[in-house]
Every structure is written in structure tokens, then in C-alpha cells.
């Protein structure tokens, strides 16, 4: 056994898992507050990559300005979508809202194709090219940066949910909307906030994913991989997104290396089925008990 190789593969798996976790966070934030599974997260991620491309390559803005603008752009899209499409659907069946997000994904993809056309593109390099070595183990620089960013963002969200009033309001809304209303919490405001923050997070993830794999109108499929993460981790758990992301990242890396790349998805989805059978609400998801 080549332990250095194993360590390198493991680090690579953790790095790509962190990217999945960051994207999964966008699913979790919206679901936690509104009980809506937003299938357009992948397309908002894609839009984030394109917004960064537009600000940096199109308008020639420096990276330090283009990144926050792209993230803010994602947040603005989140606010508009919530106000114009999701809030009018309040009270409708979950499947109706779910289908709205499916449609939203197609609309975003079509809009990007119209504005930036269908060609795949590479983002301007802003992460540098010097390789990172942990001891003797090689880690891709972009993956190391992605891991760092995802770690910081997820830790921040865990702290916000624990200590910030807005975070507590979101948890209260997630727990019981009627009770939250009666305590004076602005529930529609919480919904808006969740969409804004989640879409901004997805847009940020889009910049990282785009920096590694390039951008194209179809890069939103990455969001589907993150959906697996939230199902395993728990749809309403931030910690679940982190653990699920790292777990999937590791399993994919080990399967891809030691079994072959063609086994990556097979292994991931086998894990998903096994996970659902053992813990249908995910590793850290809230167990819902319905009493008749």
C-alpha cells in the first residue's frame, strides 16, 4: 500500500467534498426555512460563475470586486425569485413549488445561453498555480482554497444559527411557522432572508466550481451531486451538509481511484440508497413524526 498516494487521494476527496458541502448548504438554508427543495440551486450556482465572469473578464473589474459583486448578484436573484415566484405559491402543495424551481432552473439556463451563448468558458485565474504540499502529499491549490472557503463559510453559518438573532428566527420558523408568527417573528422576511443567503452562497460556490472546472450553461448538474449530499446529511442540517459533503467526496475519491472512475457514481448512489434505508431523514436531519 502506497500510504502517500492514499493520503493524497484522501485529501483530494476531502477538498472536492467541501465544494459539495458548500453547494449543499444552499439547499439546506432554503429547505430549513421554507420546506422548499430548490432544484434551481445548480443553475444559481452556474449564474454565480457567469456573473463573476462578466464582472472580471467582461467589465475588467479586479477579483476582489468581482467576487462580492457576483455573490451579491446571486443574492439579488434569490430575493427576486422568492418575492415574485415563491411567496405567491405559499399554501400550495410542495410539489407545485418544487416544479416552480424546476422551471426556474430551465429559465436561468436559457437566460445564460441568450446572454453569454452556449460555449463553455474558462474563468480568469485568480487562485495562482503554485502547488500545495501538506508534508509530502500534493493537494491541488484550487481544491485547497475551495476547502478553506467552504470550511469558513459553513462554520460561520453554524455559529450564526446558534448565536445570531436572525439565525435563531430562522430556526424558530423552521420549527413551527405559526408559533414563530405569534412570537413576532417576521416569517415572510425570514423566507426572503433564507433565499437571499442561500442563493448568494450558491453563487459563491459557482465561482469556486467555475474556477476549477470552467463554466458552461449546463454546469448546474453539479447541483444534483450536492442534492445527494443533503439527502445523506439531512435536508435541514447545516452540519449534515458538511459531513455529507466530506463523506461523499471521500467515497468518490476512493472509489474513483481504487475501483475506477466508472464506479464513482455507482458507489455514491449505492450509498444514497443505503443511507435512505437506514436513516430516511439523513444522518443529521430532523426526524418528523406525524400523528393522526
Amino acid at each position, binding site marked *: 500500500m502506497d500510504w502517500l498516494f492514499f493520503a493524497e487521494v484522501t485529501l483530494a476527496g476531502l*477538498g472536492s467534498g467541501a465544494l459539495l458541502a458548500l453547494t449543499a448548504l444552499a439547499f439546506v438554508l432554503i429547505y430549513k426555512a421554507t420546506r422548499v427543495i430548490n432544484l434551481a440551486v445548480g443553475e444559481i450556482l452556474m449564474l454565480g460563475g457567469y456573473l463573476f465572469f462578466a464582472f472580471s473578464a467582461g467589465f475588467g473589474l479586479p477579483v476582489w470586486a468581482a467576487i462580492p459583486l457576483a455573490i451579491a448578484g446571486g443574492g439579488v436573484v434569490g430575493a427576486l425569485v422568492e418575492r415574485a415566484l415563491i411567496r405567491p405559491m405559499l399554501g400550495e402543495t410542495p410539489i407545485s413549488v418544487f416544479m416552480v424551481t424546476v422551471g426556474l432552473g430551465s429559465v436561468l439556463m436559457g437566460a445564460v*445561453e441568450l446572454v453569454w*451563448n*452556449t460555449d463553455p468558458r474558462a474563468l480568469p485565474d485568480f487562485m495562482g498555480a503554485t502547488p500545495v504540499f501538506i508534508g509530502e502529499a500534493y493537494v491541488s491549490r484550487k481544491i485547497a482554497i475551495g476547502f478553506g472557503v467552504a470550511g469558513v463559510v459553513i462554520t460561520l453559518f453554524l455559529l450564526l444559527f446558534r448565536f445570531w438573532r436572525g439565525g435563531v428566527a430562522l430556526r424558530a420558523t423552521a420549527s413551527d411557522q405559526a408559533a414563530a408568527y405569534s412570537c413576532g417573528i417576521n416569517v415572510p422576511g425570514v423566507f426572503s432572508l433564507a433565499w437571499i443567503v442561500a442563493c448568494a452562497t450558491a453563487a459563491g460556490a459557482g465561482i469556486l466550481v467555475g474556477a476549477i472546472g*470552467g463554466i458552461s*450553461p449546463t*454546469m448546474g448538474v453539479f447541483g444534483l451531486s450536492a442534492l445527494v449530499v443533503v439527502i445523506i446529511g439531512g435536508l435541514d442540517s447545516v452540519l449534515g451538509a458538511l459531513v455529507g459533503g466530506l463523506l461523499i467526496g471521500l467515497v468518490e475519491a476512493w472509489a474513483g481511484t481504487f475501483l475506477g472512475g466508472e464506479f464513482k457514481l455507482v458507489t455514491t448512489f449505492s450509498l444514497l440508497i443505503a443511507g435512505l434505508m437506514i436513516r430516511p431523514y439523513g444522518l443529521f436531519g430532523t426526524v418528523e413524526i406525524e400523528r393522526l
Partner: protein
Amino acid sequence: MTDLNRRHILGLAATAGLASTFLSTLSAFADEKELVIGGSIPLTGVFAFAGVAIEAGISDFVKIANEAGGVAGRKLRLAYEDTAYKVDQSVAVFNKLTTQNDIHLYYGDSTGFAKTINEELNRRGSILMAGASFGSELNNPEKYPFQFMAGPDYVEMIAILLEYIAKQQKGAKIVFVNSDTEFGRDPIEASVKRAKEMGLDVVGQIVTPPTAVDVSTEILKLRRANPDFTIFHGYVLAPLPEFLSQAKQLGLKSRFMGTFWSMDNSLWANVGAPADGYMGVMPYRYYYDTAPDAPILEKIRKLRPTYQATGYMQGFLTAMLMTEAAKRTLEAGKALDAKNLKASLNTIKDFDTGGIIGVPISIPGNSVPVGRIYSYSAAEKQMKPASDWISLKK
């Protein structure tokens, strides 16, 4: 306001049906002097970048051909719809277009569609088909008698790369990297066998999942295999730039190569320094090639002053070859059926493509096994020829 009951609605529907039948009959008469190229073209979806270029290429060929008087007295027309690169949608478009138009030439968007629709082509016996697929399975005149491709199939593309490698470095170490898709898997088995027959050393095969973004683990495998040449297949752009970028970070000496769909100049233009030296096989000249024996490229540049992608050349040449087959069939006074069209196509020998391909071509079967190696120069932001044209011998 008029009240519509069921009888009225049925009456209106029957009238509308009769009217549309009458109109389509009239339209068939009007189209008698037309030669319609049908197309299931992916203008959206994962292959849209190519579909948009292909549509432009076919449309321009149609325009140029019509300005030159058409084909044996007939005007060419392209009738197409978007398929989003989905087989079921491509089949639906095929059924719709072939019902509405008298189509004898058809452009399909994928290997999957070609394999699905070929039985229907055989049953109808009236349509010659080509398309975006260079799938090696389609390069079988017995199984796919009414199909062809305007270039080498994927196995032939890699064979051209291998010929180049064998000339550059005897016994070179090779790693194949392919996506886990029908497109990606297509040539691998045959290419590994061919490489071994040519005395090349295949030191690894790496498969990436279809949605792969991060390729760190694959790079680690590549680093340990340490090949002289790495051949990618089954990709357009991602994740190749990341492969190249990380390989350079690690100081790997391997030269990276790809096949036709990953060879577009504009795709590599904004990848920057990591793209430098990326090589691959191209069956056609690039838009900007000013070779004196390529007058058609000059004409294309006048028609479209900005760069046109490789898909454009593919669409243009496919339409040219289809039309040539139709022209030969009509001039011989034969019926425009699939058998005659294919037989006419197979009479194409030492044919001048106007310089799209740098050597005269022949189509004895279903493919045109010719290509040239190009290498990307990041400084000049252009793919530059790295070899002469290579014609495969059977």
C-alpha cells in the same frame, strides 16, 4: 357571443384537418424543386456550443450553393429544430420534419439518435443521414447502410494521433483518459489494442464520471503513470484545462492530446498559459487558415468576418458531401432514394472540398479517415499545424 357545442368543435376540427392536408399538398407541389436537408440539431443543452455552429455551417453552405444555382436545378433548404441533445426529442423532431417536408438528406445530433433512427432509415429507404457523431459503431456500411460521417470516426481519430506519436517517439508511454459516457468510451478498447500493435506502451487508462469537475484524484494517477503522451477523449473543454493546469503545477512532462470536439480554437483561447502545447486531431482546417488551396475558407470569412467554431466546418462539409451525393444521383437520372444517394456518396473519390480538408478525399465506406495534428500556441492564441495531413490506410 357564439356558444360552441361539441358538434361545432368537431366540425371545426375536421375543417382544420382538411385545410391543413390541402395546404400541405399545395406545399409539396411548391417544394417540388427543392432539396430539403432536415436537421435534429442541439441548439440548447450540453452540446449547444456545437449545434449553434453546425447550424450556421449548414445554413451558409445552403446559401452559397443556392447563390451558385442550387443542386441540379433544385434549391437547397435547411429545415431544422432544436433537440437539446436528447434522443427522444431528436426522434420527435425527425418525425415532425419528415412528415412536413420531403426530406432525403438528414443531419442528426448524436450517436444515440443515429443508432435509434437507423432502423427507421432502413425501413423508409429514402433518407441519407450524417451528423455530429463520429461514433465508430456507425462506421459500418453493412449495419448502417444509409449513414456516413464527414470525417474519421473516433477510433480513426485516435489512430491518427497514434501514428503521429509513433513517428515522434518509438515505444512512447501513453495514458488514455476518457469520460464515462458513450462518447468517451467509444474508441478506448480498439485504441489500446492498436497502440500495442504499434509498439506503444499503454501505461494507464483513466475514466472520469460525466459530471466531473475536480480531477485531483485522476491527476494523482496520471502523475504515477508518468506518460509521454496523454490522450483525452469524450470531452469538449472541462475538465481538460484543470488536467493541464495541475499537470504543469506538478511538472509532468506528458504532452496532452485530444480529439475533434475538444479542438475548437475559441474554447482554448481564454484558458491561457495551461493551454499552450495542447495537441489534437482535426479533420478540417481552421477558419483563419489562409492556405492558397482553401478558397472556400476565404468565401466563409467574407460571409462571416468573425471566427467560426470547428462545428461550423463540420456542418458545412457535411452539407457539402450530402449535396454532392444528391447532385450525382440527380445528374445520373436516378431516384433520390437512400440506396442511390449512398451509392453516389461512395463514388466520391479524390474530391476537392475547397480546402476545408487539405487533401483530396474519398468516401469508400461511411467515414473520411483523414486528419491533421494541430497544437495550440498560447502566445498566438491559435491552433497551429503540427503535422501534415494523415490519411489512414485500412
